């Protein structure tokens, strides 16, 4: 089959020749999503700067970064494959518990726990992915994923001999990173660690979503029927991305367990799954930064509002959400871009 060609070469030059204008244009379009934009560099530089210039905020920032990574993991399935999940907390929580248990029973070395936490979540993702392939509506997927997460929560509650039940897992202790950097009270090591892991995972995710595989995911999200008829193995691709997403969520959970050195049932609770969906939708779906930006906005709002009013901060968050939707997320998301274009236009 591969020996047949649909067309004899026509007006367009053969491969191997120097790229023509047309080829260059086509290649540019194909590589479009993979090219780094100035705003992206700016974003990560700002993240790096926060490590050096905001030492007082490292603890909060660690939480932001972990939530951001968790939301990024959800973006992989929601934004790139169109699968909604209200049970992503299952993977986050499993990663957290595994990382915690590894530190107690195996080794306090952080990277081992991180990896095992991620792997365990990935395995769970792989095992439960077929449930998502049911011919079902978004609502059904939402509830099946939620059901799985709730079962895991109850299981962790029941298995108190292993998990500590409702009291939480006691005795988590993480050794210094690379044997050198102790996890200090200021949260500096923790923030650097979480930030580096998140950046690395982001790079990998970015590479993946701009690859042919990523393109096929976008095709599935856009039109699964057509993707099927051009020979994309839809089921396998979805299982793969769901597994990867679960692994990411597990690593986010492991990061939380390691940086706080504590795991409680909260990591599996319903609000974990709901919050991450909220954060991702808030930041915008399908461009990888949505989760990170949503996490920053959400956590900062929460921190500011709850400092002003520890009792009623939720009201103001709610109001912000309602207003954002009423104004339109598109318009808000477009605003920084428009501003950027104006700045660049003005500079020329």
């Amino acid at each position, binding site marked *: 089959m591969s020996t047949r060609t649909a067309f004899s070469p026509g007006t367009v030059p053969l491969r191997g020749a120097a790229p023509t204008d047309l080829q260059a244009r086509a290649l540019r379009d194909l590589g479009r999503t993979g090219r780094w934009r100035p705003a992206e560099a700016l974003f990560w530089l700002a993240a790096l700067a926060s490590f050096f210039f905001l030492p007082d905020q490292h603890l909060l920032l660690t939480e932001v970064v972990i939530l951001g990574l968790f939301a990024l993991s959800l973006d992989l399935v929601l934004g790139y494959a169109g699968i909604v999940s209200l049970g992503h907390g299952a993977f986050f929580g499993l990663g957290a518990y595994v990382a915690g248990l590894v530190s107690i029973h195996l080794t306090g070395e952080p990277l081992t726990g991180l990896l095992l936490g991620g792997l365990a979540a990935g395995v769970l993702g792989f095992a439960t992915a077929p*449930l998502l392939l049911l011919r079902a509506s978004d609502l*059904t997927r939402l*509830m099946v994923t939620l059901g799985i997460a709730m079962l895991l929560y109850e299981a962790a*509650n029941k298995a108190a001999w292993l998990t500590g039940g409702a009291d939480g897992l006691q005795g988590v202790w993480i050794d210094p990173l690379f044997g050198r950097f102790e996890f200090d009270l200021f949260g500096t090591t923790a923030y650097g660690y979480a930030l580096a892991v998140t950046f690395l995972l982001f790079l990998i995710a970015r590479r993946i979503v701009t690859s042919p595989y990523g393109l096929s995911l976008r095709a599935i999200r856009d039109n699964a029927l057509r993707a099927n008829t051009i020979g994309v193995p839809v089921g396998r691709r979805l299982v793969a991305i769901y597994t990867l997403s679960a692994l990411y969520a597990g690593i986010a959970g492991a990061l939380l367990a390691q940086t706080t050195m504590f795991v409680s049932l909260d990591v599996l609770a319903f609000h974990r799954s709901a919050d991450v969906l909220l954060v991702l939708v808030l930041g915008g779906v399908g461009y990888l930064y949505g989760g990170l930006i949503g996490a920053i906005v959400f956590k900062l709002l929460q921190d500011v509002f709850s400092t002003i009013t520890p009792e*009623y901060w*939720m009201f103001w968050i709610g109001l912000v*959400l*309602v207003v954002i*939707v009423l104004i339109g*997320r598109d318009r808000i998301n477009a605003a920084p871009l428009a501003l950027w274009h104006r700045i660049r236009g003005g500079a020329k």
Partner: protein
Amino acid sequence: MSTATTTTRDPALMLTILIDGIAYGMLLFVLASGLAVTLGLMNFINLAHGAFALMGGYATALLMNRAGLPFLATLPFAFLVPALIGAVAERTLYVRLYRRPHLDQVLFSIGLVFMAVTAADWLFGSQQQLITLPAWLQGRFELAGVAIGRYRAFLILVCAALVVGLQFVLTRTRFGARLRAAVDDQRAARGLGINVGVIFASTFAVGSGLAGLGGALGVEILGMDPTFPLKFMVYFLIVVTVGGTAGLTGPFLAALIIGVADVAGKYYAPELGAFMIYLLMIVILILRPQGLIAR
């Protein structure tokens, strides 16, 4: 733990448990029926549904405890207050979001939940709202050897009447026909001279009112505090998803199945306890991904 784990298979007892389960299921249905309409028929994900139940529950609790109204007299308010607020919210807020993506609807309605929860907390405090039922609804009576809680029997009667009424309105009345037309194809319905806006607003109002009534009826059994909308959101969604989005029959069946299975499960297999409802949901959805009664 010892001897008594062997439970009696006494038929009268099983009937008692069945009736408890049906009452619980009926209550769930009334609470979720409005969501079944907005989500199933109008295709709008309204996570704030529980907020209307909250209003109903608080209307009853406050009118009883502060104004001294009798229980039954508060129920019309428990329906009307959320219905009115629902109608206003529908016309001013929800109406802008019908055509928006589901994720926008989720974000918007969860925002409303947050606001409702904190508003209730701010206005009335964070503690449980409790009511005292009139004497004729307290205690139990025996019917052919089966012990039945008076309040549970009352719940079953009221909810059954509501179910019959709803089904009648939806399938047998002009309003029901218009609603179905408006839901199926808004443009065509407008062409037929149906005022889709009014239909949607009144449907939304009735759905909210029913949630409020459910909240009021549930104060005694489910409790009522500001976090009610968050705590029970999942239950409403389970009822609607398991039931299917074709109409009200599916959610009704689903609510009954869940109610009975939950109560019976806790009695006969307590170690499964909290797993029951989720296991049941997953199994049903694997077997019938579109819910019990699909469109």
